[in-house]
């Protein structure tokens, strides 16, 4: 099946005092209609930046380069400003991390959704309002017709996130990007939202990119999983495959340092030593090398690891794996 989205060699750089700082480095992935992709990684690994380039809303100072960002047969890089506007919200929509910040505090929920609808459709206010009620209903927003007259500040966090979802659904996009859409919510609400997104995605046949740093969530929502570290993709494949059989030392380290419901002190966590690197401080070589327990001396410092195949569709970027296979991993 032809993927709706195919990203090839995407890089994002920011100008810095001492040359450019690369925050997304040579990232490639693709996504088929109706499937979901989880992008996971620690804070600052470039997840949000990668997503924002897909909507052309990366900060003005960002320099985005890619061989191609294919979207339904077009290259997003080549769109004019006006064409971009037609894609944003209508074909690709985004749900942001912090619903409080993402909604304009001075404009009612209704007005914001109506605006989003009318940005792409020539329709009357009343029609747009009806659509607003409809999508709010889909997003599980109770009593939409009345409560959508509220300002965002009058809603709870969970409800605000539902408004953000409704906003994303407003123009029936083919792809929804959810950037840490549940991170600020309580676990119980997070569970509801994740369930809702999954259902909507199935029902409406949308593709979904879900960004998170919680590998636990990745398993619940994603068909595919992309693990990022310091702007690099280090492991990519079907979520189940990657989580059951992580083949990059970083993915392994993450899984072992995160407590699960089964963990206890008898079975202590194994922290990854050191700190996540500052962006731009990687240079050439393997991004994880400074914290890696099994780095290959002389290779990891100089050469960027290429993809090795660890299973069907399961790719790993690691010199050690390339050299020693699963045996060499910690």
């Amino acid at each position: 099946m032809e993927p709706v989205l195919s990203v090839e060699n995407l890089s994002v750089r920011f100008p810095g005092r001492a040359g450019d700082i690369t925050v997304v480095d040579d990232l490639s992935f693709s996504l088929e209609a109706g499937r979901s992709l989880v992008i996971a990684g620690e804070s600052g690994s470039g997840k949000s930046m990668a997503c924002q380039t897909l909507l052309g809303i990366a900060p003005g100072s960002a320099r985005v380069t890619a061989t191609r960002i294919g979207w339904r047969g077009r290259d997003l890089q080549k769109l004019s400003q006006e064409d971009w506007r037609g894609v944003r919200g209508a074909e690709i929509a985004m749900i942001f991390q912090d619903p409080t910040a993402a909604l304009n505090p001075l404009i009612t929920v209704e007005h914001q959704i109506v605006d989003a609808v009318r940005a792409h459709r020539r329709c009357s206010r009343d029609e747009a309002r009806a659509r607003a009620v409809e999508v709010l209903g889909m997003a599980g927003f109770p009593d939409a017709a009345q409560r959508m007259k509220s300002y965002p500040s009058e809603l709870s966090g969970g409800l605000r996130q539902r408004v953000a979802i409704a906003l994303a659904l407003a123009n029936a996009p083919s792809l929804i990007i959810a950037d840490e859409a549940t991170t600020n919510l309580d676990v119980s609400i997070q569970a509801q939202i994740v369930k809702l997104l999954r259902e909507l995605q199935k029902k409406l046949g949308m593709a979904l990119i879900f960004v998170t740093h919680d590998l636990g969530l990745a398993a619940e929502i994603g068909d595919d999983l992309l693990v990022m570290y310091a702007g690099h993709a280090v492991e990519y494949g079907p979520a189940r495959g990657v989580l059951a059989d992580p083949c990059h030392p970083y993915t392994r380290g993450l899984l072992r340092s995160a407590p699960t419901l089964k963990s206890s002190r008898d079975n202590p966590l194994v922290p990854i030593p050191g700190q996540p690197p500052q962006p731009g401080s990687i240079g050439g070589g393997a991004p994880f090398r400074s914290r890696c327990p099994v780095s290959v001396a002389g290779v990891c410092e100089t050469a960027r690891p290429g993809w090795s195949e660890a299973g069907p569709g399961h790719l790993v970027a690691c010199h050690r794996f390339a050299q020693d296979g699963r045996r060499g991993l910690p």
Partner: protein
Amino acid sequence: MNAAVSTSAGVLEARNIVKTFSVRREGRTREVRAVNDVSVAVAPGEIVGLVGESGCGKTTLSRIMIGIEQPTQGEVRYGGKPVADRADWAALRRSVQYVFQDPFTALCPTMRIGKALAEPLAIHGLCAPSERDGKVARMLEMVGLHPDVARRMPNQLSGGQRQRVNLARALMVEPKILICDEIVSGLDVSVQAQVLQLLLDLKQRLDLSLIFISHDLRVIRYLCDRVLVMYLGEIVEQGETASVFDNPRHDYTRTLLAAIPDHSRALAAMADNA
């Protein structure tokens, strides 16, 4: 719900705490009960977990226990005696310390790390000024930081490093009990594990008791001996960690447990489906 009352030395206890805030909304003043008749006690050497959803009153309760907030009703007791006046609180704070949630706001942005760490020593006159630097260096090493860090400003440190500095500062007065309010929530998983390990390590070495607040049940399960589950300002369930987790009795606890994203469980589920 009343916890068993213990009068033995070294026990920090909050008894029948009620805290109401008056919130003005639309011009009307409303009372919000943030904490409703809650009792907690920590025995020496124990790690007590406090878990519950956002806004259930965890922070409020913990701040009452260190005296940053005053309870509407109820009292805090330490070593069997009620903590009443200023002097009592000052004394209590020599034995009980508090670590704040956000590593980025809990350090004075204009003060070097060394100075920040030496402050408790200066305030309480714990040692001669000449010995302070040495003590600071030793404490930094204890929390796994290079003594050079003393010369830095907070903004030159990463979140994990700052949280270590916060811990170190609380430990400068050599407390017996440490109250930690969501101290790992803001950290990346890989760093979170480092801090959790450090806490366990410190507890061993310094014979600390901990009140550990988190909304992440996975962390609580890993770290705590005993757990209290809070819901809407009340404690709805408490007990040994393993028994609460394996055998939750309250509906709310069950909902919480069910909602935890967990890859092992998800994988198991997928495996079942496959």
